[in-house]
């Protein structure tokens, strides 16, 4: 199944998509600039028809590795296909295109990743913090996150 997806995706990608074996469901690694084209193909193609975006995950690999990742879990209801799409980002000024024009559920899930990791989503309709207060400093799920001592005169203890 994965080979079929790869052969479908390689014409639309500028850099070759790679299969990733150590994942369940099967995963494909793509480059940042190919994301929207890949998602558009997977969403609209009649052989795949990934109509549900189950989950978007942000991952920080830490300051030593210097990378962040965004992982998309797609599911196709009519064909019962699962697919994981992985995109690697630099840790300095991470930015990626939004997919919320394809799946509306992307809106809030991307906002959550922006909130927790500071990954900027280009062309997002409403990129604000969602879980943390609007004037919170820092991005809490980054591996090198240090919380502020006081928030509005409340001492923060962990």
């Amino acid at each position: 199944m994965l080979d079929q997806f790869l052969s479908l995706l390689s014409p639309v990608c500028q850099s070759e998509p790679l299969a990733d074996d150590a994942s369940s469901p099967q995963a494909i690694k793509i480059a940042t600039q190919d994301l929207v084209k890949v998602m558009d193909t997977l969403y609209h193609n009649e052989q795949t028809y990934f109509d549900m975006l189950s989950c978007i995950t942000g991952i920080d690999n830490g300051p030593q590795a210097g990378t962040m990742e965004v992982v998309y879990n797609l599911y196709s209801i009519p064909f019962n296909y699962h697919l994981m799409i992985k995109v690697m980002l630099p840790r300095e000024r991470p930015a990626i295109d939004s997919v919320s024009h394809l799946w509306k559920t992307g809106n809030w899930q991307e906002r959550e990743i922006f909130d927790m990791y500071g990954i900027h989503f280009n062309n997002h309709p409403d990129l604000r913090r969602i879980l943390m207060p609007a004037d919170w400093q820092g991005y809490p799920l980054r591996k090198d996150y240090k919380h502020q001592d006081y928030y509005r005169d409340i001492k923060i203890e962990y």
Partner: protein
Amino acid sequence: MPTDQIQYKSHPDNLILSEPNKFKPGTLRSEEMIINLGPQHPSTHGVLRLEVLMDGEIVKEVVPHIGYLHRCFEKHAENLPYNQIIPFVDRLDYVASMNSEHAYALGVERMLGIEHQIPKRVEYIRVLVAELNRIASHFIAIGTYGMDIGAFSPFFWLMRDREHILRLLEWASGARLLYNYMWIGGLFYDVPVGFEERCLEFVNYIKPKLKELNTVLIENKIFVERTANVGVLPLDLAINCGVTGPMLRASGLRFDLRKVDGYSVYPDLDFNIPIGEGKMGKTGDCWDRTQVRVEEMYESLKIIEQCLDKLTKEHKRTRDFDPQALVPKKIRPKAQDMYVRAEIPKGELGFFFRADGKSDIPFRCKCRSCSFVNLSVLPEIAKGILIADLIAILGTIDVVMGEVDR
């Protein structure tokens, strides 16, 4: 910190600065106004704030502000061993902890590769308590929904019957709501002696009560008039917004992960998946969503009966049965990424794990919560409705803020 000191200096700007409104008063047209609903309001089922842009009585935009119950689940999970995360998982959806635990245990077991070695008795007990908890969760959903729109007595009746379930679960696990009962690879305890009989008693007790509920609330003319054709969620929008669970099924798609994925022992059990058919109005309206939940309770009772049958015959209690026999001493999955999902009463609960293969602590544990995603559909279906209907729609989404904010 000593508690007799002032810990927080109140300032009128604090609320505005920490969670500013999306709409600014200066930019509104003269007939528009902003109504703030919540965060402390009984109809928001927890701490949810809705910023509602109104034109008279008509809702033009709804902007949910969430995060008031954010307890850093994912940050905690990155600092705790796999088995110690289970109590945190309980506190996500705190009215259906067993179901969340089931999903989490399933995920870690799948990463360890012991998913199919779990003893059948353990799996049947897991499904039994999870389905009991599913009924309890739907009781809350329907009871509070009735109360939201003015039917007060069904709430008390459902809370009374929910109490029987909570006592059964307390008897099994020792806690009323937050159980920590399902461990990775097994259970904390076997069910107590006599549990099966009491469970069967409960099933026989609850069946006529559900019929009563149907007569007094679901098919009541006032309730039908209030909920039919209100808040219609079309199927294409539902799928596009990632909506799952009873909400998606009420929109007319027969999609239940217990059947689709067939995890645990669900493939061996016989049950149906109720869907919304637009019996009282359009498919996917508030009445359909409530009706699907009621039908699901009957199906859960069917599952419970089958589980009890298996637990008293094929997989009977034996003296040497140890529910903790397969619990690993050291939980260290090999390096991998894993997305696992399971059906909890609100929809698809997913966990994304990244294990690095070197430690007992997950490198990343993301929780895809169904209430969070289901709530994001509210601004889509709440355009151009009356403000009273906004409350009616919010009730059928059945949000639990503990799971929305994590």
